[in-house]
C-alpha cells in the first residue's frame, strides 16, 4: 500500500534515499554509502538504519529486492533494498525544498549585506 509522506524527511531517511538513488544496496552497503556521502559526518548504526528502513518500506519509499550474495563480502545472502517511484518523487521534492530554503537564505544574506553596505 502506498501512503503519503510528509516533508521534511528525517536526516536518516534522506541519507538512505540518497544512498539508494543510484543503485540497490544491502544494509551494510547503505551504511557505507551514507558514511562516504557525508564524509564520515553521519554515523548510522544498525538500530537507526533498520528502524528507518522499516518505516520507509511501510511508507512505500523503498522496496525489498532479491536476496543474494555480495561477492565483496562473504557467502551469506543479504536482502537488497531499492528506491521506489514514490521514493524518487519524495527525494526530488525534498531536495527542491532544500534549494528553496537555500535561495531564501541567500536572498536574506544578500539583503543584509546590502543594508550593511548601504549604511
Amino acid at each position, binding site marked *: 500500500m502506498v*501512503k*503519503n*509522506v*510528509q516533508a521534511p524527511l528525517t536526516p536518516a531517511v534522506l541519507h538512505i534515499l540518497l544512498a539508494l538513488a543510484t543503485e540497490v544496496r*544491502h*544494509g*551494510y552497503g547503505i*551504511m*557505507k554509502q551514507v558514511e562516504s556521502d557525508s564524509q564520515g559526518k553521519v554515523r548510522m*548504526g*544498525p*538500530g*537507526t*538504519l*533498520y*528502524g528507518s*528502513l*522499516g518505516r520507509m518500506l511501510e511508507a512505500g519509499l523503498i522496496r525489498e529486492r532479491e536476496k543474494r550474495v555480495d561477492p565483496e*563480502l562473504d557467502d*551469506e545472502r*543479504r*536482502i537488497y533494498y531499492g528506491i521506489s517511484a514514490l521514493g524518487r518523487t519524495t527525494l526530488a521534492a525534498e531536495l527542491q525544498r532544500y534549494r528553496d530554503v537555500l535561495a531564501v537564505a541567500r536572498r536574506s544574506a544578500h539583503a543584509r549585506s546590502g543594508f550593511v553596505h548601504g549604511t
Partner: protein
Amino acid sequence: MAPEPSLQRSRAWYARLLRLYPTQFRERFGEGMEQTFADSCRRRRTAGMGLFGFVIWVFAETFTAIIREHVTRLRTNAMRDDIRFLKTVKYAATAVGVLLVAGILTLMVLARGRTGDDGDIAGVVAPALLLTCVSGVVAVVAAVRQKRAQRRLLHP
C-alpha cells in the same frame, strides 16, 4: 575463511540483544541487522581499527532503537484501538439515526388522515427528531476524529 573468535563472540552477543526487539520486527530485520553488524566489525578489523568502542556504541545505539520500537508499537496499538472504537461509534450512531428516521416516517404515514389525539404524533416525533440530530452529530464527530487518528497513525 572462518571469522576470528572475538568477531564471532560479538556477533553472538549482538544476536542476543536483538531478541529484545518486538517479534515482528526481529523476524523481518534481525538477520540483516546481524549481518550489517558483523560486516561493520569485519571492516574495522581489516582497517586495523579498534573494535571495543565500536561494539559498545552499536550496542547502545541498538538498545535505544529497541526502546523506540517498543514505544512506537505501543502507541500504534493504542491508536488502532482508538480508531476501532471510533469506527464502532460512527456506525452505531448512523444506524440509530437511520432507524429513527425510518420510525418517524412510519409514524407519519400511519398518522396520515387521523384526527384528534390519534393523529397527534408531535409528542413522539419531536424527541425522536432530537435524537436523530444527536446521532448525526455523534456520527460526524466520530468520523472526523477517526480520520484524524488515521492520519496521525500514517504520519507519526
